[in-house]
């Protein structure tokens, strides 16, 4: 019995290891892509459905007699609101990229990753569209939402700024132009660390990317300061940030694929 157990454990481990090797060697890609295409359709639909439901929940009920009519109108209104929002986002993104030496590609959010301890989204653009690991991702108005951490042929994964593994070099727009590290906290919070104690931070100050990281241009908006944590015995102070983009309702984004350093 013990021997059989050992053999089974070894067999299962072997199959998993072979699968992982086949994945990283790329031999599994054709099959993976086909399965993902099927899954993406369903996950994309669920993601969009969820956005639609959230939009409807924001509207209140007025007259019970006109329930059906009202529900239909609410659905239409929610659809219209989504289209309007998409339109606004696209216009904002176009305005942001105008007159800038930045190569970018527009992408649609087709889902989120299913890890409960991380905060990432999946885009419908990948290596074939020039999307590579480390590329910054912005929402409307040039608001940074995250960085590409995984890029495959037709899809890519974005680690959002509120993920606990996210680290982005940021600058405060205060008089000291303080530099710090913007970090996330399990999808719940975003904070800026490593700000020297002697520098002044005001509530409402804007945080932008510092440009110190390769591939991330200076000046992308990140968030505004909501509160400051300052302990006299600590060498650094910490600013709690309010992201400028709703990270739970992202639908259209742009991936910055190349930044002209001039």
């Amino acid at each position: 019995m013990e021997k059989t157990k050992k053999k089974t454990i070894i067999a299962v481990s072997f199959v998993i290891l072979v699968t992982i090797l086949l994945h990283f060697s790329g031999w599994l890609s054709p099959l993976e892509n086909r399965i993902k295409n099927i899954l993406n359709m369903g996950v994309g639909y669920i993601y969009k459905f969820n956005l639609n439901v959230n939009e409807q929940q924001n509207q209140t009920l007025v007259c019970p007699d006109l329930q059906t009519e009202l529900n239909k109108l609410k659905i239409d209104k929610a659809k219209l609101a989504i289209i309007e929002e998409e339109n606004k986002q696209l216009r904002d993104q176009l305005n942001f990229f105008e007159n800038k030496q930045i190569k970018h590609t527009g992408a649609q959010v087709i889902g989120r990753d299913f890890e409960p301890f991380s905060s990432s989204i999946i885009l419908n653009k990948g290596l074939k569209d020039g999307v590579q690991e480390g590329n910054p991702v912005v929402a409307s108005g040039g608001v940074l939402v995250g960085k590409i951490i995984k890029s495959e042929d037709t899809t890519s994964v974005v680690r959002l700024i509120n993920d606990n593994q996210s680290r982005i070099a940021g600058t405060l727009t205060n008089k000291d132009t303080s530099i710090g590290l913007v970090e996330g906290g399990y999808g719940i919070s975003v904070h800026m660390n490593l700000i020297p104690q002697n520098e002044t931070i005001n509530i409402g100050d804007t945080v932008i990317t510092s440009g110190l990281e390769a591939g991330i241009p200076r000046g992308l908006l990140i968030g505004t300061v909501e509160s400051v944590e300052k302990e006299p015995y600590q060498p650094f102070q910490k600013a709690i940030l309010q992201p400028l983009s709703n990270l739970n309702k992202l639908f259209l984004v742009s991936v910055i694929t190349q930044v002209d350093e001039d």
Partner: protein
Amino acid sequence: MKRIIKFISFLFSTFLIFFLHSFIFLALPFPFYQINLVFIVVVLMVIWYEAGWVVWYAFLLFLLLDFYSALPFGITLFSGTMSALIIFYLYLNIFTNKSWYGVLALAFLGLIVFRFIYIILIFLDSLIFGKEFGIISQDLFRLISWEIFLTVATLGIIFILLTKFTKRLNSIMIKT
């Protein structure tokens, strides 16, 4: 013909479970999106079928989940499949009586093993590839606790409901 129908229903159920899991994750608010439906299905299938192929079915489900993971490929797959195998052995050797508390204990231990292997693999990944290991914190344990509590509670409700409709999960009906 029977085999073809079985194969189609097998594929259909796999995709259905995956989409239901994604629906829970994408549509429910915190902390309810922490309910691990795939894990609930694996535990119920182990008890229902009492067969080793359930571990391979778990392999397939966790493989699909791994396609949607921001973590390096293989972490979810390995930790999920191994915990399914451990659940299967625990069921065959320790929690054999199909009682509701046995099922809950099985899910509880299985989830702990799952998250333990998961964290160890993330740690090894950061150690080997020189990445920052920033996952351990108070928040992580809070989230894991929510996941265990809600998954075990949901499984308990589903199990009790199932025992009302079928004798297969009844503790009197154990095969000897």
